[in-house]
């Protein structure tokens, strides 16, 4: 493998890594407010892509609005999911909630299949059409720039939300001490709903932004969900920057490993990383000493 090949793998790794990062942010946000891994996170990604393509192709809505509509609709699904499936479980028992998210994931998948069919949909047009960009012999598809830009905006936005806004601070307080948060007047139920909304929006954004390159299909949330989960664990389920670092690292590992060894290993890497982190460093690579959420 030449240096140029390596660079090409790095570019590819950073592209898929940014997607994993968006998913990992979703896992991290919900974990912070509930202490639960939301296994339906990948479905938000799938819905984002699906709804984007449907809005654009079937309803003829212009690309920008189709994308926004898909994100908003998926956010609504996230809120509904929380209100109907998570909130009724008053005691917040993590095991019960995790099983509920697994059930929710299966339900969303089968409903989508029922409504849309089992075939891959078409892809969306590229957000900014044009030939790929060549730098130093490395090719970068234009859509990758969008993926990176959106991920950067997401992580900066979330960090500002958590550090600067009243509600963001309430979200952090809730993740540190739920009972303490209620004692200062924070409506923790609302925080949980808001975190599902945010997580769904981030998943949908990832789904929409990738759909010019990868055609959406009802089952596409499962594998990306697993990778986002691995990235979140790698990042330590902590602050947004760590989640993004986890996503990018996983993307790089995957692509470089498939370059050096064989592409058949690619999908296995996430699992190896997941298990490796859980066995060796449960607080994650970027999690610091104690697991400080958010």
């Amino acid at each position, binding site marked *: 493998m030449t240096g140029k090949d390596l660079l090409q793998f790095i570019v590819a790794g950073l592209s898929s890594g940014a997607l994993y990062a968006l998913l990992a942010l979703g896992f991290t946000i919900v974990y912070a407010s509930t202490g639960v891994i939301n296994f339906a996170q990948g479905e938000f990604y799938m819905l984002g892509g699906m709804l984007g393509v449907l809005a654009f192709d079937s309803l003829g809505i212009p690309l920008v609005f189709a994308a926004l509509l898909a994100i908003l609709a998926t956010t609504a699904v996230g809120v509904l999911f929380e209100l109907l499936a998570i909130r009724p479980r008053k005691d917040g028992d993590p095991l019960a909630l995790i099983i509920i998210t697994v059930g929710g994931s299966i339900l969303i998948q089968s409903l989508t299949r029922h409504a849309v069919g089992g075939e891959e949909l078409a892809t969306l047009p590229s957000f900014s059409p044009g030939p790929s960009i060549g730098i130093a012999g490395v090719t970068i598809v234009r859509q990758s720039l969008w993926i990176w830009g959106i991920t950067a905006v997401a992580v900066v936005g979330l960090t500002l939300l958590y550090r600067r806004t009243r509600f963001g601070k*309430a979200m952090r307080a809730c993740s540190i*001490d739920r009972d*303490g948060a209620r004692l200062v007047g924070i409506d*923790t139920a609302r925080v949980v709903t808001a975190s599902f909304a945010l997580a769904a929006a981030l998943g949908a954004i990832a789904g929409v932004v990738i759909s010019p390159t990868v055609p959406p299909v009802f089952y596409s949330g499962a594998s990306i969900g697993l990778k986002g989960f691995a990235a979140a664990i790698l990042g330590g389920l902590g602050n947004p920057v760590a989640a993004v670092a986890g996503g990018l690292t996983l993307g790089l590992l995957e692509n470089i490993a498939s370059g050096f060894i064989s592409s058949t290993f690619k999908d296995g890497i996430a699992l190896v990383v997941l298990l490796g982190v859980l066995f060796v460093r449960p607080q994650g690579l970027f999690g610091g000493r104690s697991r400080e959420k958010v």
Partner: protein
Amino acid sequence: MTEAREMLRVEKVSSGYGHVGVLEGVSIHVMHGEVVTLIGSNGAGKSTLLKTVAGVLSPTGGSVVFDGRDISGITPEKAVEAGLALVPEGRRLFGSMSVGENLELGAYARRRSRSFSSEFAEDLEIVHELFPVLGERVDQSAATLSGGEQQMLAIARALMSRPRLLLLDEPSLGLAPKVISEIFAILDRLRSRGVTILLVEQDASVALRHADRGYVLRTGRVELEGTASELLANDDVRMIYLGSWKKSVSGT
């Protein structure tokens, strides 16, 4: 003090955890501007009573009336809005957040009226004046404070909600005598400002010396009540809660 009005009335309240009943028909009241203390040995139900007043627990019987309004079964977040602030056992600070952020969140329940930011600044000034050490540590994370400083922050955070009734659960717990007297000196200052306080304390003699009235709780019931000086003079209280008994035994 203005004409005595009732701030809190707990009427025949029963409460507990799931199927475990702890309080059985407890009745207490607190007047405006009063400092009332609850004393009693471990497990008597003191914290349970505070939690029931603050909405952390719902009473299974009886009623909690706060400033004329029945708040039985209120949620804790509504209770703060109504003007009750609980400084809980174990303080419940946001450890990885800064002192400043903890104080800011203390004011979370306040209405965002136009005057909010000036009122917030005022409150912050009062709190820094009461607890100068917090002012020096605004950017430090709460978890890195000493035990005494954490207790001060917990009280300060509660004050930021502008409570009409401050509920304090064992503010002296685990602190050195010197720090305890500092904290009680601050409570005296709050008292002289007219803050109404319901105080739970293990150390009955300290509590009674800083209160107007007191209740002695025993296995979920009010066993005795009276003014602080009555209770300090009461033989049973002296024997069981003030340790005179131990002293007289060791003295013979």
